């Protein structure tokens, strides 16, 4: 299985405001990549655009999964093609039980050609699998009966995202700060679970500000994003440098990208003040 996710010169705007300014990234199935960068540099945006969020306008560039044009697909098509993103801030869907949602999702992803209204995977089989996965993640079985992300604590939300990763077994997964909002034990558990579920079995793009997740999932590549571009790519040692020493060296080395990053952040601040 040598799938490739290839992003070339990706430019993305929101309301005419550029956010990604020419991103290039290539990931092979089985590899682990770390994506780091200061707040507001565009990391989540990159993930959301790969996952197919309709709120972003792609003005240039391409995303290909093997020879499939990802930008031509809706979000659901991308999920069925094997793309997954664990969100930094997942939406809640009151009234929809985790188990029902997951059964639909799992069926569609495993049977990408399934037409609406066709059978779902058998209840018993699904339940057993879900139960096993939840045990593995040390989740209370009661969790399956709760409404999707409704009233979840920060930690529960992240664990629910990992559970979905485990059920859907994508080819490529983007994990957007799946380690944030977790206490020390939970970070360790999450990191170990992700390693067990995903390492070498998927292409992993790990967005993080911390070290624990990368300790369990040592990246072959570390990318640094600044001002909407990937300005540097290195090995695991680069990740280590960034979370121990911060971004001063990077900012100094790429003043133009740094300026772009500052501008995006101040736009954000101005908008926030207005709103």
């Amino acid at each position, binding site marked *: 299985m040598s799938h490739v996710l290839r992003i070339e010169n990706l430019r993305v705007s929101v309301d005419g405001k550029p956010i990604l300014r020419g991103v290039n990234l290539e990931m092979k199935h089985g590899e682990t990549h770390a994506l780091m960068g200061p707040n507001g540099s565009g990391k989540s945006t990159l993930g959301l655009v790969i*996952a*197919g*969020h*309709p*709120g972003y306008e792609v003005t240039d560039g391409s995303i290909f999964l093997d020879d499939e044009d990802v930008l031509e697909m*809706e*979000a*659901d098509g*991308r*999920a*069925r093609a094997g793309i*997954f*993103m664990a*969100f930094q801030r*997942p*939406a*809640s*869907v*009151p*009234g*929809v039980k985790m188990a*029902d*949602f*997951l059964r*639909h*999702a*799992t069926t*569609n*992803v495993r049977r*990408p050609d399934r037409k*609406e209204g066709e059978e779902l995977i058998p209840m018993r089989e699904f339940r057993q699998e879900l139960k096993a996965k939840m045990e593995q993640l040390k989740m209370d079985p009661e969790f399956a009966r709760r*409404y*999707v992300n409704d009233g979840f604590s920060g930690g529960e939300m992240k664990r629910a995202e990992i559970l*979905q990763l485990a059920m*859907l077994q994508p080819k490529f997964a983007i994990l957007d700060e799946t380690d944030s909002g977790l206490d020390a034990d939970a970070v360790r558990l999450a990191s170990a679970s992700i390693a067990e579920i995903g390492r070498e079995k998927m292409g992993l793009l790990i967005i993080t500000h911390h070290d624990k997740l990368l300790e369990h999932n040592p990246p072959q590549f570390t990318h640094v994003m600044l001002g909407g571009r990937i300005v540097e790519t290195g090995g695991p040692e680069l990740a280590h440098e960034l979370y121990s020493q911060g971004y001063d060296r990077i900012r100094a080395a790429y003043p133009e990208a740094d300026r772009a990053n500052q501008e995006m952040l101040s736009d954000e601040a101005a908008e926030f003040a207005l709103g």
Partner: protein
Amino acid sequence: MATETAIENNAAIGEINKYDFRTESKAFFKARKGIDAEIVAQISEMKGEPDWMRDFRLKSLDVFFSKPMPKWGGGIDLDFQDIYYYLKPSEGKGKTWDDVPQEIKDTFDKLGIPEAERKFLAGVKAQFESEVVYGSLKEDLAAKGVIFLDTDSAVREHPELVREYFGKIIPPHDNKFAALNSAVWSGGSFIYIPPGVKIEFPLQAYFRINAENMGQFERTLIIVDEGAEVHYVEGCTAPMYSSESLHSAVVEVVCKRGSRCRYTTIQNWANNIYNLVTKRAMAYADATMEWVDGNLGSKLTMKYPAVYMMEPGARGEILSIAFSSHGQHQDAGAKLVHAAPNTTGQIISKSISKNGGRSSYRGLVRVEKGAKNSKCNVVCDALILDPHSRSDTYPYIEIMEQDVSVGHEASVSRIGEEQLFYLMSRGLSEAEASTMIVNGFIEPLVKELPMEYAVEMNRLIQLQMEGSVG
């Protein structure tokens, strides 16, 4: 007098009460179109009713003529003289499932709940066209003294009991359509639960209109005696017709001291039907009345189930779901009247509008003088699926007492882009995702339904949602 009466199948009037199923449900007796004293008297005579009922009908007819159309709700474009008011289908009452003709079984199948039908067969009352054609009472219910009959039979078999309450909770002059029903009513269920008797499983009835231009005017009366409990469920589906059709029911419920009644309705009418229903319960000391009401389809529905809390400690709860799509207007809501101290009321209303549909919540909360320490809470949430659809809220609150607590919350939301994206990013199509969000929205009510109705409700929502996205 019978010159204009169509008598079909050459059946003589005298045969009506015999156990005699026909294989076709060809209308057996059909009053001519229109409404006047002659038709009303004829209906009463056909049914062999006592004088008091005939007089009640005729008086109600006068009230009907004298009352104006309701000023609230939606536009009603009906020619009352262009409707059939009475139609009797194949005669007789079935005792066992085997006695029921295949054709009628097929109809039940089409209603989509054959399992529930079979499961609770013993307790089923089904209104087929204007008359109840199938009804049999589970023996242990009978042994407990429970009466579960079609209302026509109840008038014959339990005249005192019926007469004591009939038209007392909803008098004919309540509104024009209550008056119309009082004049021409036919079918419906009569239930009496003796003191202290608790019915474990829901009593069910299925309704259906299937003659063009035929109004259906069923009349239901439920008396829950002291400390007794019952859950009554009715589900309605109707096929499509080309011309206007009217459904106008009256449901009266009496909950005596310490009793409990839940009345669940799921209605899915064809798009050309006016569904104008009056439902009211009187709850006495420490009694609890709950209305669970799901309204789908119809051209216009106007329905506001009411609970009058007459004595201290009474509780009234109304849960309502309305789903309106293209060409449909759901003017649905609830009424709570606190007429005694320490009474508690709750209204939860959820509406969904899509494809140009219109849903209105219209609710009344009245706390009368002296109803001290009463509490009432109203929550109504509307979900609008597209910019062509509409939702309105008309809360009427009348409080004549100081020492009470009344809360009202209303919210209107549009289907969220973030929710849709989230579900789609996990492989759900846009249609599946929206259906799931809508089902989630009504879940708090659906989980109150008996299992098979919850399944049916979700299936109906799915049907309504089909083709809504694109």
